[in-house]
């Protein structure tokens, strides 16, 4: 065989004299290096494009959302009139009347009823609640006169923040000329300023943008995710360990594996429908609650955790298993003492990434009624609640201009949570990475 090959080679040599090796090699080498350079450059270009998209996304969200973290306040001289507190229940006193009274005293020249109405519009309807809170805290204020900072109406807020232009034609803006004059006067007197918007972080949803906050949604998301984690992590890990370490390889386990992979690819809205049909209609669990939300998100997260868990169990070298079995560890001891600790970082990473997906998922929650307008902050798993992404969806749908910035701000909050969770996943992986 060797002989025949040599003769073929000789024939080829006769046909075409070989160039010196170095010449041949140089040309070829250059071509190979060019190909490699080209490949590297296109890879870098792809990354740059991807990053610039991300940058544009972040810039636009932060650019339109950062203003939501500040809110315009108006200072009023409120007279807590004794006559208005005749009722035993101080919470039922006519606080809006006190606000109106103080506004009238600030602008004594306004007399006409229609003018007065537009004067009252400068201050948020929520101002009355701040007064109520003050009295509740300190009833001795009754009968006194106090300087009180109350939130301005959202239109005033927009104007102050420059998102509504005074230069526009009067018909095109919601703040009319007379209101403009009052606002200017307030500003000149130092009775108007923007402050950090604590309301946004402490209150629930509201129809008034200046009173709307994300705390309700954050808590709703927290309760849902807590349920999701408590259910999906133990179940997912147990399923992964059983399938990977104990289950016999046969038709049934193959079938289960295929179906788990299928479940991971099912659109999340389908899980929402399932939750509606089973958890709410059949089991009779309360609608719009983090309990049901968490259960639905569990269904969605489970396959992800099982798949990630099995992958990280597979990555534990079989030599560790043999070592444990070889000195007489039972299978259970092998798994709990050696395999699981080594696989745990991977499993946690998978779980956190699954949870991050669950945190950002909206569709299934729409199906089970977590999309309702809920003002109260949920206090438990069975209180009606919304979740962060649903809150974004709700605000994006609202007509008021001020909700635009609230939407972006809520997206910022959601992104911050997601980034934190993903960072935690990376840190966990780095920290517990074992080398062998």
């Amino acid at each position, binding site marked *: 065989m060797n002989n025949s090959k040599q003769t073929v080679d000789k024939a080829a040599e006769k046909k075409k004299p070989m160039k010196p090796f170095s010449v041949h090699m140089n040309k070829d080498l250059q071509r190979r290096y060019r190909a490699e350079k080209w490949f590297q450059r296109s890879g870098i270009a792809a990354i740059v494009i991807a990053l610039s998209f991300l940058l544009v996304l972040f810039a636009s969200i932060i650019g339109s959302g950062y203003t939501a973290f500040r809110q315009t306040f108006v200072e009023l001289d409120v007279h807590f009139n004794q006559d208005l507190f005749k009722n035993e229940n101080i919470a039922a006193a006519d606080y809006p009347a006190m606000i109106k009274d103080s506004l009238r005293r600030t602008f004594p020249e306004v007399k006409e009823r229609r003018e007065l109405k537009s004067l009252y519009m400068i201050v948020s309807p929520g101002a009355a609640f701040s007064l109520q809170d003050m009295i509740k805290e300190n009833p001795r204020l009754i009968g006194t006169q106090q300087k009180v900072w109350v939130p301005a109406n959202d239109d005033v807020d927009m104007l102050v923040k420059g998102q509504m232009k005074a230069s526009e034609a009067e018909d095109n803006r919601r703040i009319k000329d007379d209101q403009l004059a009052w606002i200017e006067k307030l500003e000149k007197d130092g009775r108007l300023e923007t402050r950090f918007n604590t309301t946004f972080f402490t209150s629930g949803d509201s129809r008034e943008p200046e009173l709307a906050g994300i705390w309700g949604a954050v808590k709703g998301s927290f309760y849902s995710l807590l349920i999701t984690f408590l259910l999906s992590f133990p179940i997912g890990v147990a399923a992964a360990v059983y399938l990977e370490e104990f289950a016999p390889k046969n038709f049934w386990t193959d079938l289960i594996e295929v179906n788990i992979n299928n479940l991971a690819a099912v659109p999340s809205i389908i899980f929402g429908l399932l939750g509606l049909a089973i958890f709410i209609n059949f089991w009779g669990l309360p609608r719009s609650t983090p309990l049901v939300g968490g259960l639905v998100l569990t269904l969605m997260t489970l396959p992800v955790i099982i798949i990630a868990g099995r992958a990280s169990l597979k990555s534990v070298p079989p030599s560790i298993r*043999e*070592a444990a*079995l070889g000195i*007489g560890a039972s299978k259970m*001891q092998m798994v709990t003492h050696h395999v699981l600790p080594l696989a745990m970082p991977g499993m946690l990473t998978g779980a956190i990434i699954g949870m991050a997906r669950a945190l950002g998922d909206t569709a299934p929650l729409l199906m089970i009624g977590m999309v309702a307008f809920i003002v109260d902050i949920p206090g438990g798993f069975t209180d009606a609640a919304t979740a962060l992404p649903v809150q974004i969806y709700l605000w994006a749908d609202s007509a008021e201009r001020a909700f635009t910035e609230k939407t972006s701000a809520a997206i910022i909050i959601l992104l911050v949570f997601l980034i934190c969770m993903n960072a935690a996943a990376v840190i966990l992986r780095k920290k517990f990475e074992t080398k*062998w």
Partner: protein
Amino acid sequence: MELTSHLASQSFPTLPTYDFAASLDKTETQAARQTVGNPFLENPRMTCRDVAVFYGEKEAIRGINIDVGCNEVLAMIGPSGCGKSTLLRCLNRMNDTVPGCRVEGEICLDGENIYDPSVDVVPLRARVGMVFQKPNPFPKSIFDNVAYGPKIHGFTTDKAELDNIVETSLIKAGLWEEVKDRLQEPGTGLSGGQQQRLCIARAIAVSPEVILMDEPCSALDPIATAKIEELIAELREQFSIVIVTHAMQQASRVSQRTAYFHLGDLIEVGPTERIFTNPRHRLTEDYITGRFG
């Protein structure tokens, strides 16, 4: 050596220098595969009678009869795929973990059939320890590596006694002097040879009767190999050792008896010296003289 790797990568009959399949026709096969030499001992620790192992449909070894004596080193040699590792892994039922593996025949440890349904494999594996081809310490501290076995078998709950067990095991494995100041450091940080001795210490910490070694030196350099071989000679005084090896010199250095396997059959057993100086079977002779394998 080069031929060995050649053998491993190619199927047998295409071997250019030695065409085994052609040299044996069907009728010759049966007679040629009768075990030569006496595989039986008077006072054996372990006995294998008519052992056959199947991976699925494939028969890996068949009709093996061999005894393992007390305080002896039995070397199992043969070309790759001859079934020596398969038999070794039957001796402590590690083959149970291989899906589709079936063992027939009888393997006894101290007269008790270890494949009897009533036998629990967990204590069995404590009595028949194993050292693997690749050093595989747990990614834990050196101390925990050795202490793990005694802990799970509940030998002791006393810290001082456990310390004692760890120390004796490491001394027996010849590793104590090198690691006594860093017992809390990870076992995976040791060199390859030290890791393998750590694995041996781990195996002897549960005081087994038999130690199985599956090519324990194939991943080690000659110096580490020499240390392990010395260790094997010392351990023989206390344990029975069965070692699978590809290095024939190693077999001749460490073992008292040698068994030669070929394509699932036990071809020849005998005192190591006789096997290497005066093999009776043609296949054994061909193998040890380097005509193949």
